[in-house]
């Protein structure tokens, strides 16, 4: 585990976090009428600003909200929406809810993995795409479906994936 952490830390150091981002987050936190029960809201906002939630940002939030670092990290690591790793420019979410699963979502995952040469959960080396799965999106009528950033692709067939990816290249 410590090995893994060291690598993570190195990655964080390689890409220094811009100071303006912290200022922006600080400003947001200051604008809140009270800090009680705001953790998730602040984390959402922070992820919008930083793109992800690196260790230092989580600790920054913990200190500002008067919470333990472990508690903040517990919440961040619980919700799949939050990410501790930088993500690609485009995040491909493959719905793996029951309906999509039945309609062959795993075949879509396999195809994306093959085309992007990464495994689900990872980001391409050029930081262009992140591939991940998501639980039910709530649009089961469109199963199986894929969401790329804010755009929804419904009733996707594996052979259409190449074409979808081309739109983002």
């Amino acid at each position, binding site marked *: *585990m*410590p090995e893994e*952490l060291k690598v993570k830390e190195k990655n964080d150091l390689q890409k220094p976090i811009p100071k303006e981002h912290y200022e922006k987050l600080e400003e947001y936190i200051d604008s809140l009428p009270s800090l009680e029960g705001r953790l998730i809201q602040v984390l959402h906002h922070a992820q919008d600003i930083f793109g992800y939630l690196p*260790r230092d940002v*989580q*600790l920054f939030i*913990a200190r500002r909200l008067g*919470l*333990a*670092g*472990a*508690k*903040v*990290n*517990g919440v961040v*690591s*619980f*919700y*799949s929406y939050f990410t501790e790793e930088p993500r690609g420019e485009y995040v491909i979410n493959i719905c793996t809810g029951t309906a999509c699963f039945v309609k062959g979502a795993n075949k879509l995952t396999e195809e994306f993995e093959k085309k992007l040469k990464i495994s689900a959960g990872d980001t391409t080396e050029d930081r262009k795409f992140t591939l991940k799965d998501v639980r039910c999106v709530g649009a089961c009528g469109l199963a199986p479906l894929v969401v790329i950033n804010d755009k929804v692709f419904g009733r996707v067939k594996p052979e259409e994936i190449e074409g979808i990816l081309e739109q983002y290249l």
Partner: protein
Amino acid sequence: MKDYVKVTINDKTVEVPREYTILNAAVEAGIKIPTLCHLDLHDLKMVNRTASCRVCMVEIEQRPNLAPACATPINDGMVIRTDSLRAIRARRMAVELLLSNHPTDCLICQRNVRCELQSLAQELNVREIKYSGKRNKYPLDTSSQAIIKNQDKCILCRRCETACNEIQTCGILSALNRGFDTIVGPAFNLPMVETSCTYCGQCVAVCPTAALTEVNHTHKVWEELHKPDKYVVVQVAPAIRVALGELFGMEAGSIVTGKLAAALRRMGFDQVYDTEFGADVTIMEEAKELIHRLEHGGTLPMLTSCCPAWVSFIEHQFPDMVDVPSTCMSPHIMFGAIAKTYLAEKIGIDPKKMVVVSVMPCVAKKAEAARTELSIDDNDDVDIVITTRELGDMLKEAGIDLDKLPDEDFDHPLGKSTGAASIFGTTGGVIEAAMRTAYEWVTGETLEEVEFKQLRGMDGIREATVDLKGKELKIGIAHGLGNARQMLEDIRNGKSEFHAIEIMACPGGCVGGGGQPYHYGNDEIVKKRQEAIYREDRGKSIRKSHENPEVIKLYKEYLGEPYGELAHKLLHTKYEAKERI
């Protein structure tokens, strides 16, 4: 006026307060429902009610699903069955599922025969583990000097989290990740040593399995004992003699001081001494320091510094206040420093060949002994710390039956102690001991009534005044780090003003320490140990630290004045502000 409702459990109707859970009502009805994650420590107002283990499932009439008894509130007329086949099967299945992702190395596990999961498997008649699914395998966290975290043995009951967050407010442990990947650990699953953990060991005290245990030094002690060129001395803390008996089938609160000395001698220690001697020395230094601070406008309040978990807590959580604790080292470290100088000189032993072993009710003392500043010329004041539990294991290993031993005395010159030192083991005790001495030093009069009843009790935060004839001292006492935090915040905000404060990290003080025999959720045991401590004090012929003849001799022959130059060098330390994660 309390609101009562009627519930029927297994055909037995009881009338119980409306706010009860099914489990509470069952206890009232004399019906046992097995539990695992549930832990209710009334005195600490700690209830772990995560309902995560599903071991207490019961059937409720007219409800389709079974319900966890520990977390389900009752309502009027509720009809509950705990003994239906469906409920019994569901409870057994819950344990089987836990076991399907749990190592089965019980025979060589540190918690063998003391494991709550193991007892439950036996109680629920589990004879096979029907499920063979995926199993988690995590690295062992042996990074700290005090606590080992073995995630593989964690059943996610979250008791440690409740102890760490709600009672101690340290916030080191939290559940991380989700689903099958859930673990309990520090932020970012950092190794324990990189966190602000105080090593108070309350997580260890409530862990039902061996997921959290103390770093075991029993083998190290045996090895040292059998090295021919080593001179091994042992010291035992006040709280050991009122708890060790429990490990040998005695009643909680049995005092085994004499048998303890005999047992340690049988184990082969060259000298068997008493940390209470160190406690008496601590009072000489601490009372003098308090008077010095009062007379010379020093920082007030002065906080006691006997508890290493508490010291670590203030360093990490209140870095701006590190100048308030007394600079006195803790009693067992003082003892070590004296043993490796005064004693070594007296008996003509090279201090480098002397090994000081401390038997402590405490897990944090292990980390404390490893602090590099607590040493003389790179020779640690205390070399090895073992807990009450570890001592119990060693005695059993050596075939020593504590119960059958005669009462023996400690060795001298570091074995004589007073009643003031005995009470160091309970909340309120250190400050009471300090007052017994400070009173006489300040007023120049003899203190007739040595028991300061106003300082005693089990309330988490206590305030009292002690009249030093013309000078009223305001005293604060807190035990449990959550209470300590509240007291410190009040001081920082100017809400409270005290002259002296005693803080102990563990609820109840050292009697409830993280290294004591497991209490399995029964906090009456801790109270009985506390009563025993006060009994021990009453049984002593001398009850004020400054009247201890061996302590007087130590100052006369070696140290000079209390709080003087040599005492400062050997017995005082400093604290550092530290980062918090």
